[in-house]
């Protein structure tokens, strides 16, 4: 892939990325919990945990969880594909945040519905930049 994204994405780019996943469906607020430190120690590695309330049965489960950012060079962060074998819809990882911004998580359920939540993170630059 060689397209050059701008150094900072725009809210419009994030909406577009979300639309690619959600299609024409409505996204409701709720059911998704995002755990992120409100002040990150370093934007290179920000621990994130996302969970969705769901019995995780064959009949009713979380199909996928998608994470987006508003101001990173590109909006997509990661998509987790789950299913009833997960037992619990809860995933943790570490993400990069280019600057202070809002992170959005969208849960995709087996009934085709989409749910979302957002969390804001403050990101500071290291005090002294080195030549490495």
């Amino acid at each position, binding site marked *: *892939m060689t397209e050059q*994204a701008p*150094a900072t994405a725009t809210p419009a780019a994030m909406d577009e990325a979300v639309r690619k996943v959600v299609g024409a469906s409505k996204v409701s607020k709720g059911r998704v919990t995002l755990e992120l430190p409100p002040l990150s120690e370093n934007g*290179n*590695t*920000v621990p994130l*945990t996302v969970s969705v309330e769901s019995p995780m049965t064959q009949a009713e489960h979380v199909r996928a969880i998608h994470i987006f*950012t508003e101001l*990173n*060079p*590109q909006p*997509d*962060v*990661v*998509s*987790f*594909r*789950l*299913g009833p*074998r*997960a*037992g*619990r819809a*809860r*995933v*943790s*990882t*570490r*993400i*990069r*945040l280019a600057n202070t911004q809002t992170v959005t998580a969208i849960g995709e359920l087996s009934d085709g519905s989409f749910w979302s939540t957002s969390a804001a993170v403050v990101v500071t630059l290291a005090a002294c930049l080195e030549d490495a």
Partner: protein
Amino acid sequence: MANALVNVPPRARRGEIIEIKTLISHPMETGYRRSQLGATIPRDIIRLFVCTYNGTEVFRAELHPAIAANPFIVFSTVATESGTLAFQWTGDNGFSATESAAITVD
């Protein structure tokens, strides 16, 4: 092959939800950084992580450059039967790594 650390409980009760932690060595070069001379350093990331349980896929993650270097992913699965949990990471420049862990389910 890159180093990976996986943490799977060696034993579990049937039906128990177990937590699996995975950590793999990889720079996850974003493709947005520039060298000292101003040239863009090309993207080089892990794009896909798949976990199978006795051959059946139970979890998948599609990664983008915003995942931090040395990707760390923690997820859960239901302990259904004894056997092998297999992990595979694939990415740019033909990157491929695998790891596995045995589990006894009573």
